[in-house]
Each structure stands twice: as structure tokens, then as C-alpha cells.
């Protein structure tokens, strides 16, 4: 097992390096010179040239590539143009927010997806099954950015301004303006309230996909002999479903973790942008519009590395849970 994990980790290294290479050359193939965005009117050409030298832009691409990869391996991602701080510091400010949001969304998505998928499979061909299928397919086909806007419209704007609901949710940011003056429990509640809508916009779309998959997986398991045996020996239906069928049906669902992490990160870009959530997704969009190349490269690299790690984690989990998988 340890050998398998180590081998997979070593296999991921060239993959990550390859990704870094793609990022570097895509960004460097872009037309335009980043120093042009730092120019002030009346700057002499000597100053601009000095800027280019300072940022190493006067050197040929392959030299810059080697230097960039070399620096990256020592944890130095360069200096952000727009924040005037080391890129790593900037990313470390944003990363926790993205991780909190993604973790909540992923957790909720799997919870809702597994529950709904199981209900559908157990009640196959019932009215409930078809109704859920339609609703789930509707959410599955939905762009998360539109869902986010509709949630804001319903549970934030209309709830607060038109319908006067007792509960409404904030539509932007991670905390209210008065956050610093609240007590500790109020602070937690305030943060939780801000998490609700962004989490829902991400989780509902994912949950629909997970439920569809779960339904299929559960149906396959329910048809198998050991489930029939469990029923035949007189076990109550609850035990059959939850102890025998569900556990086995969950195994293939693990692969979805690896599959859905890229989808989730794509979703966070929109959701963070819409909800003004200070995370990596919003940071990368802003960095691109400001031509902050070091930040763009580092942020895409972080995203890609997290996807590689998530895939690896899913494979290892799969091998742990399912003894039939050979990992030699």
C-alpha cells in the first residue's frame, strides 16, 4: 500500500512539472508586455527598459523558464505586480477562503447526492423516482453562475426587500461590516450565513450529478446475489439497504471526488466572482484582467496541483476501500 502511494506520488511529479510548463508557455506567448501596464505618462524609455531588466523580461524565454521553474521548486513564486507582495503571501490569504467554500460545497453535494440517489434507487420506477429524476436533471443542466444569481434574487433580494421574510441571506462577502464588533458566537453565525448561498450554488449542481451516478450504482448493487441472500435470510429492509447495499454502492462514488474537483474549482471561479468571495477563483480573474502574470501562473499552478492531488487521493481511497483493486 505504502509503495503504491509513493509510486503514484512520484508519477505525479512529471505531471505537475508538465502542467507548469504549459502554464509558463501559454502566459508567455501572450502578446503585450507587462511593463506597459506599469508605465506612467512621461516615463522615459530608459526607465521602461530598467523595469524590463528588473523583472527579467529582457532575457530570452528559455532562460526565464528555467529560472521560473527553479525558483518555484524552492517555493518562490515571484512577486505580484498588482499587490506588490510576494505571490505566495497573496495566495495564502485567498486559499483558506476557497478551501472552506469548496469543502462545504463538496460535503453538502455528496450528502444530498447520496441520499437522493439512494432514495431513487430503492423506490425505482415510483412517482418519486421520476419526479426526482426530472428535478435533478434540471439542476444538472444548470450553469452555477445563473443558479447563484437566482438564489441571490430569491433568498437575498426578494426575501429582504419584497417579501419581508424573517430569514434572508447576504449576497456578498464573507463577513458583515460589523463583524469585528460581534461576540465570538455571533461571528461564527455571521460567517455561516455568508456561506449559505455560495455553498448552495456550487453544491446543488454537483449534487444532481452525484445523485444520478449514485442511483445507477445502487441499482447495480441491489440486483446482486448477496443482496438477495440478505433479503432471503429475513433481514429487515433497512438493514439490507443501509448495511449491505449502500456500503458497496458507495465504492464507485469515490471516483467522483477526483472527477468533480476540477468542476468544483471551475464553479468557485464564478461563485467567488458573483459573491465577492475573497478566494483563489476571484483572485485569478482579477489577476488576469490586471495582467499580473506571476499571480496568474502561480494561481493556475495551484489549482492544477490540487486537481492532481485530488485525483491521487481518490485513487488511493478507492484502493483502500475496495480490496478487489490490485495496486501492485
Amino acid at each position: 500500500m505504502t509503495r503504491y502511494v509513493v509510486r503514484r506520488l512520484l508519477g505525479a511529479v512529471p505531471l505537475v512539472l508538465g502542467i507548469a510548463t504549459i502554464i509558463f508557455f501559454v502566459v508567455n506567448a501572450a502578446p503585450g508586455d507587462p511593463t506597459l501596464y506599469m508605465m506612467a505618462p512621461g516615463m522615459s524609455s530608459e526607465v521602461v527598459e530598467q523595469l524590463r531588466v528588473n523583472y527579467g523580461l529582457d532575457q530570452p524565454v528559455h532562460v526565464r523558464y528555467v529560472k521560473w521553474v527553479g525558483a518555484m521548486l524552492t517555493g518562490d513564486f515571484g512577486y505580484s505586480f498588482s499587490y506588490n507582495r510576494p505571490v505566495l503571501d497573496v495566495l495564502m490569504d485567498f486559499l483558506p477562503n476557497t478551501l472552506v467554500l469548496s469543502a462545504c460545497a463538496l460535503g453538502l453535494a455528496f450528502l444530498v447526492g447520496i441520499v437522493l440517489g439512494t432514495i431513487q434507487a430503492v423506490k425505482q420506477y415510483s412517482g418519486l423516482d421520476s419526479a426526482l429524476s426530472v428535478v435533478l436533471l434540471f439542476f444538472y443542466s444548470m450553469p452555477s453562475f445563473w443558479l447563484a444569481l437566482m438564489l441571490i434574487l430569491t433568498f437575498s433580494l426578494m426575501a429582504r426587500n419584497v417579501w419581508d421574510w424573517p430569514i434572508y441571506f447576504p449576497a456578498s462577502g464573507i463577513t458583515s461590516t460589523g463583524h469585528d464588533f460581534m461576540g465570538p458566537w455571533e461571528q461564527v453565525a455571521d460567517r455561516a450565513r455568508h456561506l449559505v448561498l455560495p455553498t448552495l450554488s456550487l453544491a446543488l449542481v454537483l449534487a444532481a450529478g452525484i445523485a444520478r451516478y449514485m442511483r445507477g450504482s445502487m441499482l447495480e448493487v441491489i440486483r446482486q446475489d448477496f443482496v438477495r441472500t440478505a433479503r432471503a435470510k429475513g433481514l429487515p429492509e433497512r438493514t439490507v439497504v443501509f448495511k449491505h447495499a449502500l456500503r458497496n454502492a458507495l465504492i464507485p462514488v469515490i471516483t467522483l471526488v477526483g472527477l468533480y474537483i476540477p468542476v468544483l474549482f471551475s464553479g468557485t471561479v464564478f461563485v467567488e466572482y458573483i459573491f465577492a468571495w475573497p478566494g483563489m477563483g476571484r483572485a485569478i480573474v482579477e489577476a488576469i484582467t490586471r495582467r499580473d502574470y506571476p499571480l496568474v501562473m502561480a494561481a493556475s499552478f495551484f489549482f492544477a496541483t490540487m486537481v492532481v492531488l485530488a485525483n491521487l487521493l481518490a485513487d488511493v481511497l478507492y484502493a483502500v476501500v475496495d480490496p478487489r483493486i490490485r495496486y501492485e
Partner: protein
Amino acid sequence: MVGDPVTAGPRRRVVGGRGLSAVLPGAPQLLAGRWGVGAAALLAWVGFLWLLVARWDRVWAGAGGPWDERLAVATVVLGLAGAWVWSWRDAGQPLAGRAVAVSQWDLAVRAFSRNRTAVAGLIVIGGLYALALVTPLVAPYDPLAQGDLMTERYVGLSAAHPLGTDQFARDVLSRLLYGARISLSIGFVAVAISVTIGTLLGAVAGYLGGLADTVIMRFVDMVISFPRLILLITIIALFQPSIFLITAVLGLTLWPSTARIVRGEVLSLREREFVQAAVALGYSKTRIIFKHLIPNALAPVIVAATLGIGNTIVLEAGLSFLGLGVQPPTPSWGTMVDAGRGVLLDAWWLSTFPGLAIVFTVLSFNLVGDGLRDALDPRLRS
């Protein structure tokens, strides 16, 4: 590929015969229970005929107008003729009992046409593409024409503007119809690009193996582990966003998943007897790949492509939403959703309807994709 000869088709092909088909093409087939083809032909006939009558002046003017209006007129004429001729000829066919050879594709078509939701999805998609083609004849207003900015901005749903107006007093319904053309064509072209590249490279990697396989598949691994949206926004933002760039970039970033599917299929096909026989006969590698491997690996590719069009439409809308896609004033569903973002409470229709359009389009593609997956997999056929 050819199965046993069996009796083809349902017992009654048509009800009402040629007489009914001459007046209402599709109706005889619909009444006989072949509701998929029947509804398609009937809808095409009624829809295009209504268009011809109600918008006669525009059809007349469009025949000598710019290329998209000519295309619209041609669509109407060909659609009408096609529905009529097909229904007439179909109604004249012998009732039943013809013994014919049935291929795997025939079986798949039959399995697909039994799946009602999938057929409904296919009809909706066909309708959307037809609507996109005839948009210049249907749209009530010019999508770029601004109304009176003092009185006609943010007008709600009304008879004059069924889906309201936007911040420049433009008609939302007209923009929605024109936006469909952008979304649908980008989706189709991008997926066509990716399927072509993916199938070729996947087949080459799977069949040749060795160095070619390693190089191609390592590259595929890299691109797949990249969150696609990040790659897209990076590329598009660094260059100048335009419809052509988006289509190309969407197409060029989707192919790795197709390549992976095709490679997997080819790896198993490679060991089968018919391929061994082709090798023994001394056929060239090109011939084996194009004539023997690719046609047999296509079924999962078709499913992935159908679902991929839906995904691509969502992605394109997302990019346009971020301002990195189709640039204003060209209408696109993504930019329209974005336009309503700041005025959600005052003009809820601006974001809502383009979003619903995306959802229903993608939903149809997903329904058809699911139906195709069930129909093309012999194990799932009942």
C-alpha cells in the same frame, strides 16, 4: 455488423394514407404511433407554414437580403419541402412485413426511438437549430436596435416586449433568439473540432502504442488535470476575446477526454479477430485505423460529444458572463445574464430568461446523450 433478417417496423406504418399526408405531413405517422418522426415532421410543417404566411413580407424581402436572411428563407422552403416529401413517400411505403437486414445502427435507432424523453429532447434540439436558422424572420425586433432610452428602458413583460427590455431599451426576446445562434453554433463547432482531433489522436495512440502512445497520453493527462475554465480564461484573457478564439480554444481544450475514450476502445478492439484478420491481410495502418478501428469506437464518442455540446454551451455562457467571451453588443446568453446582474431586483427578467434558455438547451442535450448511451450500449438494450 449485420444481424439476422427480421420483420422491420411497427405493424401499421401510417394512419390515413397519402391523402392525410398531403395536407398534414407527419400526421399519418403520428396517428400510427410513430410519434417521434411524426411530431418532428408535423411541427416542421406547421411551424414553417405559419412563418411563411405570417411573415410573408419578411420572407419576400429576405430572399434578396443579406446571407443570413437568405439562409433563413432557404431553411423555410427546404424544411417545408422536406417534411412534405418525406411524409408523402413514407405514407406510400408497403404496410409491413418486409424482411430486411438489420445493422447495429438500426437496432440503436430503434432502441433510441422507444425512449420518449430522449426523442423529445432531440425534437427540442432540432427545433432550436431550426429556430436559430430562421431567427431573422421570427425575431420581433432588431437585436441591436436601441429603443427610446427615456421611456423604454427596463420595461417589464408586456405585449410589445414579451420578455421585457434591457438597459439600452433593446428587446430581450429578440436578443435571446439571436443569442441562440451564437451559443448553438459555438457548441457545435467546438465539439466538432474536439471530436475530430480526439478521435484521431486517441486511435493513433491506442493502435500504435509505444512512444506515440506515451507522448499523446501524457499530454492528455496534463490537460485533463487542469481545471478547464482556468485554462480557458487564461488563454482568452491574454489574447483578444473574439468568437473565433473562443470556439477554437473550447475545441482545442476538450479533445483530450475524447482521445482517452477512443484510446480505451481501440486498445480492446486491437486484440479482436477482425482487426487481426485485417493485419494478416496486409492492410496498411492508416486503413486499419480509419476503416476498422474508428467506426467501431464511435459509439461512446457520439454520446460524449452530445453531452459535450451541452457542457460547451454552459462554458461559453460562463466565459461571456465573465466578459471573456462574446463581446457586446453581439447578443449571447452569457452576456445577457451578466447584463442583468446589477439590476436583479428591478429587472429580474434580464438574467432569468437567458439562463432558462441555457438550462433547457443543455437539458435537451443531456436527455439525448443519456438516450444515446442507453441505445448504443447493447448490454442495456432490452
